[in-house]
């Protein structure tokens, strides 16, 4: 994208984006600090919902409105599907109304007549934020962004997020871990030095990060989490109870199969959940086409129901502390991030563990986006006193004999991090070597996450064991793996073909970018047509009116016929999709009515001079 602008000093605006499970937000850095980019209706939040209406795909607020009416065409919580395979998500798919099309590797969702991969869906959300930003900055084109990801996202999930950015027409300059972004937003470096724990419990993911602050350097010591633990899980508990009740009360065992009902109930349980953060008792209430359901819910019962979920966040907290070599007492400050941290039980659990009153001054929904904007400021060079040193959340290894994983880069290593390994051939004349790279903490290949297979090709045919291929594994500052290989004897760069286990190949992403450009052209054309029609409306109305005037009647018949002809033609052309054609007809009508307009103006002027009305 920026091939022609090797810009030294030219400053393009970089925005920060929190691409959340439930909601997404954009933010930017101005002279006074990070600010949220307002949406078209002046709000802050873009719901992470996308709906395919056939003629067009809508995202954000407009799509959320369709969750209940068009459940089969509308996706939410797509973040939970990023970088995953169909096998990974069987369990939660049962709760989603949309259908997953069986396909190799990457998941495809069926929405109406089209299928979409999770990165494409996320790209619609990103495009919505890009659009909001461009409107806010008076049409300035936004092409660069920092996007946040859960700290515990693996390589495939990060890659999928980066792909989503590219598809949306955004160069993703950095993926930042959400808890780290939150720490940046809090500006906790003002205390100069100390240990901070960031507890980030969002809609679909949970992260804990332990940071050490040192004169503006935010050094992550350890991170842990669960990319499948969030407010959604709490909703699902309540949802199951309500649906069960309704099946009994309504005498309809199939109530849970009706996607519209399920989405209506989902909305009702979320409302009840949110209320219980402020009042001790509320009720789940809904009305579906005249059928009513109501159930009282106390905070006490709610807390009992969700206690196992809250407990599941504590294990990762302890593990992170252990990896950081710290005890809970050594943590100076705790920061709460994510909508689920509004729940009183969650706050109590965090306070009890860290024995510290957590920070909640910033809106937990906005703090990650604000932090992304600060990181954007660091990258643009506007912020020079801060620096983020993050870690890789999972160990990286390669498959060795007997299905055992040999670890090359350990979890919680500061990134960028690298490791080198020399490979050789096993058979005489062997010309390629396949390296299977995995992520995870377990010993065996089957218990770790397959990342990709790297095919070292074009090895000079030699007797077995003589070839020496030096492979360098580098995890970059985004937490994404890069692999390069070199022939150890000749020093020649060795070609490496990457076969991602779950993600999109580069070619697939390119094809999607291409398609989105075409889409953008379609959008452009559509807007042009709409605008042309609005102006044509005005012209047609004006000419219709002047045809009633005395001036028109005074024109020679040939001229009147000519005006009538073009006038009628414009009304036909009006319905065409060719804006240039509409415009040319408008110009023609303008021209043939030129004389008429002159007469009318003159009549008006002379009428005004006489003090009479026409």
């Amino acid at each position, binding site marked *: 994208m920026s091939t022609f602008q090797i810009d030294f000093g030219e400053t393009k605006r970089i925005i920060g984006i929190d691409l959340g499970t439930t909601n997404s937000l954009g933010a930017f850095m101005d002279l006074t600090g990070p600010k949220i980019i307002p949406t078209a209706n002046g709000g802050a939040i873009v719901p992470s919902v996308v709906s395919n209406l056939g003629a067009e795909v809508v995202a954000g607020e407009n799509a959320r409105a369709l969750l209940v009416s068009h459940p089969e065409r509308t996706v939410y919580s797509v973040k939970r599907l990023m970088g995953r395979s169909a096998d990974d998500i069987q369990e939660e798919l049962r709760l989603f109304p949309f259908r997953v099309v069986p396909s190799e590797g990457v998941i495809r969702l069926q929405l109406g007549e089209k299928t979409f991969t999770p990165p494409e869906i996320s790209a619609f959300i990103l495009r919505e934020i890009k659009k909001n930003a461009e409107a806010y900055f008076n049409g300035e084109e936004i092409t660069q962004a920092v996007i946040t990801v859960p700290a515990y996202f693996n390589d495939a999930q990060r890659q999928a997020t980066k792909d989503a950015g590219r598809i949306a027409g955004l160069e993703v300059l950095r993926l930042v871990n959400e808890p780290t972004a939150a720490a940046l937003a809090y500006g906790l470096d003002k205390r100069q030095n100390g240990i901070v724990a960031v507890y980030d419990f969002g809609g679909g993911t949970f992260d804990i990060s332990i940071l050490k602050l*040192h004169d503006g*350097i935010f050094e992550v010591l350890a991170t842990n989490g669960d990319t499948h633990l969030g407010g959604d899980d709490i909703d699902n508990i309540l949802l199951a109870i309500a649906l069960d009740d309704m099946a009994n009360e309504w005498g309809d065992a199939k109530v849970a199969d009706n996607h519209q009902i399920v989405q209506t109930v989902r909305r009702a349980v979320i409302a009840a959940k949110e209320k219980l953060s402020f009042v001790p008792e509320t009720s789940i209430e809904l009305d579906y086409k005249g059928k009513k359901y109501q159930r009282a819910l106390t905070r006490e019962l709610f807390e009992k129901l969700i206690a196992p979920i809250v407990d599941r966040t504590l294990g990762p907290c302890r593990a992170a502390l252990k990896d950081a070599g710290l005890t809970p007492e050594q943590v100076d400050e705790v920061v709460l991030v994510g909508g689920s941290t509004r729940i009183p039980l969650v706050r109590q659990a965090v306070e009890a563990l860290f024995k510290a009153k957590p920070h909640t001054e910033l809106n937990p929904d906005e703090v990650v986006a604000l932090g992304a904007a600060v990181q954007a400021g660091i990258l*643009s*060079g506007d912020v020079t006193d801060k*620096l983020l040193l993050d870690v890789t959340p999972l160990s990286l290894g390669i498959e060795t004999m007997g299905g055992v994983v040999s670890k090359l880069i350990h979890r919680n*290593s*500061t990134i*960028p991090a*690298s490791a080198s390994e020399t490979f050789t051939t096993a058979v005489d004349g062997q010309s390629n070597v396949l390296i299977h790279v995995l992520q995870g903490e377990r010993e065996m290949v089957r218990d770790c996450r397959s990342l990709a297979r790297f095919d070292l090709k074009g090895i000079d045919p030699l007797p077995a064991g003589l070839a020496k291929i030096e492979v360098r594994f580098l995890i*970059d500052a985004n937490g994404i793996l890069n692999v390069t290989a070199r022939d150890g004897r000749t020093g020649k760069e060795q070609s490496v073909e990457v076969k991602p286990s779950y993600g999109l190949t580069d070619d697939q992403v390119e094809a999607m970018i291409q398609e989105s450009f075409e889409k953008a052209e379609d959008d452009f054309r559509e807007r042009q047509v709409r605008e042309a029609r609005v102006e044509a409306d005005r012209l047609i109305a004006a000419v219709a009116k002047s045809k009633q005037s005395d001036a028109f009647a005074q024109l020679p018949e040939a001229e009147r016929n000519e005006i009538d002809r073009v006038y009628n033609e414009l009304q036909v052309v009006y319905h065409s999709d060719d804006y240039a054609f509409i415009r040319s007809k408008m110009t023609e009508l303008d021209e043939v009515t030129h004389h008429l307009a002159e007469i009318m103006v003159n009549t008006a002027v002379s009428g005004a001079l006489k003090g009479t009305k026409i």
Partner: protein
Amino acid sequence: MTYFEAFGLEPKLVVDVDDLQQRFYRLSRELHPDRFTRRPVEEQQQALEKTSVLNDGLRTLKDPIRRAEYVLKQHGFDIGEQRTKDVPPELLEEVFELNMALEESDREQLDGFRTKFAAMLGEIDGGLQGLFAAYDASQSRDDLQKIRGVLNRRRYIENLVQKIDSSI
């Protein structure tokens, strides 16, 4: 570039870890890829390379054992071999008794072994400091050879501790 060179240090086994950490922060501020977003691609690539060396280097040099292994490797010593195979002769008896205790999962005995081995490790680490200083002064291969022997023994005991920990 060696890790020592990356930090502007002499290749010595005794390292002031606080000083190392300060050097790390100072160099990170200068070299981190975040500082090169607006620079040409080659400079970005260099920043990525240099920072990864810095990060890998800090991890290696901060820890005395990894640091010693790194120096041994640099001098052509094979490390990482003979992990659990050959029992150091002076430990033969203990290993035999330990295996019995493991088999019977005798908690009391196992705890006793754990304490004993932990003390041995402490002793070894104390001794290493002297060996490190000796090598720094002599720069002789013989001293490295000695360190290598101690590290192998150390790793062997560490594995025993792990074995105990995973059984209790």
